[in-house]
């Protein structure tokens, strides 16, 4: 039984399913961490937008359908089950947009959200710095007041999608005397601005999935500030709460990959029964964990719709999906005899790609060590680290 079913929701499900069946690319798109692949994924975003499927929860006038979060979960189930391309606009849509909705001015919403929905402006996140990873509040990139705006200087790193993105969002220190998370401001910066230099970094899988960004006297205006000056930490944390919570990784992804794992396992059961039998328990566990994740997220979504905000509990969410994703893909690889020397095989490649991508899960969006600290301190009430 689906945890949250209703006739209108089922109509949406069928509409999305039909549309995807008719419009899916005939062959998989090249990785969006290449220039050509990025462009192809941008076109896909435009096509999604034309069908009203890019940002279903946004208001109609901003490019969405005004649907609730349960509908979004259903959309996601269909989206990932169909094998549709990854979302190149993910950072903007799921990390930045919630902050714009909460803290942006009306002018910012009207200016920034529609092009984001259309895929015309793809955003890169720029949180980390060489000396500020898990300890994000140690960041040193700075913004100084100039006439009519701000001058940005600093060095961001591990910036997802930055190699080809149009714009970036990140934190800069605006009060040089304030300590740690005080005195930071949330800036929105065009990648084309003078003084921005991007150096793509080859990731484990060879793609340029993230980059370093050097900012050298980059001039921006007050309209490029999101939320209040010196209150950027607060704005950013509201985004990371949504990041860890419901929006970043919907259950649809893991329902889809665990269903593919089951299919693979059934095929291998015919050709290599001993291998399949050895992995049986892991396959079943992966499927059940994906189901548990769906039930948890649907319960959280219903709670959120009835007025309970997503709080530090979202850290448990991040732990669960990131570790599940690795288990699903490790098991998928183990079902393939000699996978490591057949990564060019079209049947094997998606498992290898998925495996390598899954390994980043416990690192990005706040490492799982940080998530465990958050749970221990803010939910269980254990003491903060004595260092």
């Amino acid at each position: 039984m689906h945890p949250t079913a209703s006739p209108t929701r089922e109509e949406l499900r069928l509409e999305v399913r039909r549309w995807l069946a008719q419009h899916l690319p005939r062959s998989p798109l090249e990785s969006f961490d290449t220039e050509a692949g990025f462009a192809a994924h941008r076109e896909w975003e435009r096509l999604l937008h034309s069908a009203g499927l890019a940002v279903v929860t946004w208001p109609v006038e901003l490019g969405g359908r005004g649907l609730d979060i349960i509908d979004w979960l259903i959309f996601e189930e269909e989206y990932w089950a169909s094998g549709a391309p990854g979302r190149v606009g993910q950072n903007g849509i799921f990390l930045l947009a919630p902050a714009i909705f909460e803290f942006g001015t009306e002018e910012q919403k009207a200016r920034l959200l529609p092009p984001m929905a259309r895929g015309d402006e793809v955003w890169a996140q720029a949180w980390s710095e060489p000396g500020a990873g898990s300890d994000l509040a140690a960041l040193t990139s700075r913004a100084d007041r100039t006439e009519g705006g701000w001058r940005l200087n600093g060095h961001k790193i591990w910036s997802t999608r930055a190699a080809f993105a149009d714009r970036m969002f990140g934190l800069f220190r605006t009060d040089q005397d304030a300590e740690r998370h005080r005195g930071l401001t949330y800036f929105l910066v065009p990648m084309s601005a003078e003084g921005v230099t991007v150096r793509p970094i080859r990731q484990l899988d060879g793609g340029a999935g993230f980059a370093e960004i050097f900012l050298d006297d980059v001039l921006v205006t007050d309209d490029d500030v999101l939320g209040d000056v010196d209150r950027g930490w607060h704005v950013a944390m509201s985004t990371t709460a949504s990041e860890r919570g419901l929006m970043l990784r919907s259950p649809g992804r893991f329902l889809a990959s665990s269903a593919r794992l089951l299919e693979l396992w059934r095929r291998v059961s015919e050709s290599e029964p001993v291998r399949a039998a050895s992995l049986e328990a892991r396959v079943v566990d992966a499927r059940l964990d994906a189901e548990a994740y769906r039930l948890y997220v649907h319960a959280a979504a219903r709670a959120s719709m009835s007025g309970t905000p997503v709080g530090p509990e979202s850290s448990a969410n991040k732990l669960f999906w990131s570790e599940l994703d690795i288990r699903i893909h490790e098991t998928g690889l183990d079902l393939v005899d000699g996978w490591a020397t057949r990564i060019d095989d079209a049947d094997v490649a998606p498992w290898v790609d998925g495996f390598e991508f899954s390994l980043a899960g416990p690192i990005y969006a706040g490492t799982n060590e940080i998530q465990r600290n958050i749970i221990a301190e803010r939910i269980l009430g254990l003491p903060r680290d004595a260092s």
Partner: protein
Amino acid sequence: MTAPPTTEAQEFAGAVADLFDRYSSTEALREAHATSAGRVPALREHLARMGVPGLSISPAHGGLGADAEATTAILIEAGRRAVSEPLIEHVVAAAVLGSSDSDLADLWLPRLAAGTAEVAIGLAEQPVPGARTADLLLMIDGDAAWAVDPASVELAETMSVDPGMRPCSVTWSKDGAQELAPGSADIARRTVAVAAAAQLLGLSEAMLDAAVAWALVREQFGRKIGGFQAVKHELASVYAEIAFCRPVVLHAAASLASSTTSADHDASHAALRASRVSRYVARAALQVHGAVGYTQEHDLHLFMTRAWAVSSVWADPVRHLYRITQELRSDQLS
């Protein structure tokens, strides 16, 4: 749909939880364990007065007619306090006997609801908790379920890891036993799985709470051990496992209440996950307590042993894993 429980159901669960607190403290449990029945007499009386033995028995048979979700809320509370009353047995009897309009339902359900009779449930070849004191035995054997007169069976006491459980191996014969309606065995199995999962969830929550409380008072190296990252991270992992167990249990209860096609799957998933989580939480809680947790002087063992027993008797994770594996082998996704 796993709608949040209604306020009325919540209020009732709260009132029952108060009773558990008052009459089933760990001191009371310890005293009860030293007696032959292993149970707290005062709690039994007060529960009967509130109608809890008839919780999920229909009003027509003198019960409260609570649905699976309201029942689950109370079973979770019972788990949180390691209550040793035969609540699971009553819930299973209500589901099995209440599902057909047999004379057995008319005969037994009013007495069970009033708390004047008790029932024991036998699953497969396992020893049966409470068989010695039961007035009625419901034996689940393969595809069939049987109502058996305790006077007609041979009992041999066995020993449970849970000091509050009084099991017997039961030698019984189908001659003279009454076979229940077709489907009763399946109803019994999924009802017991969900009921046990709910208790295990409560037991897991209680053990996490105990471990956190201990980590906040126990000091080593001049600081509270709850400040060490190794301890914090382990307890955070425990929290996450419990957090992902709860919606699975509540969903299984909702599926049971509305008899959806996935009710068997959901019940097995709940039993499997709650069993595994409870075993993991018990081990982690013991590790955080250290040597003092490895004693009978400390209360933790009451919860650990109860969790092990409930899992083994009512929510055997191996059987449920096997069931789900068979189902997934044959291309059924829920």
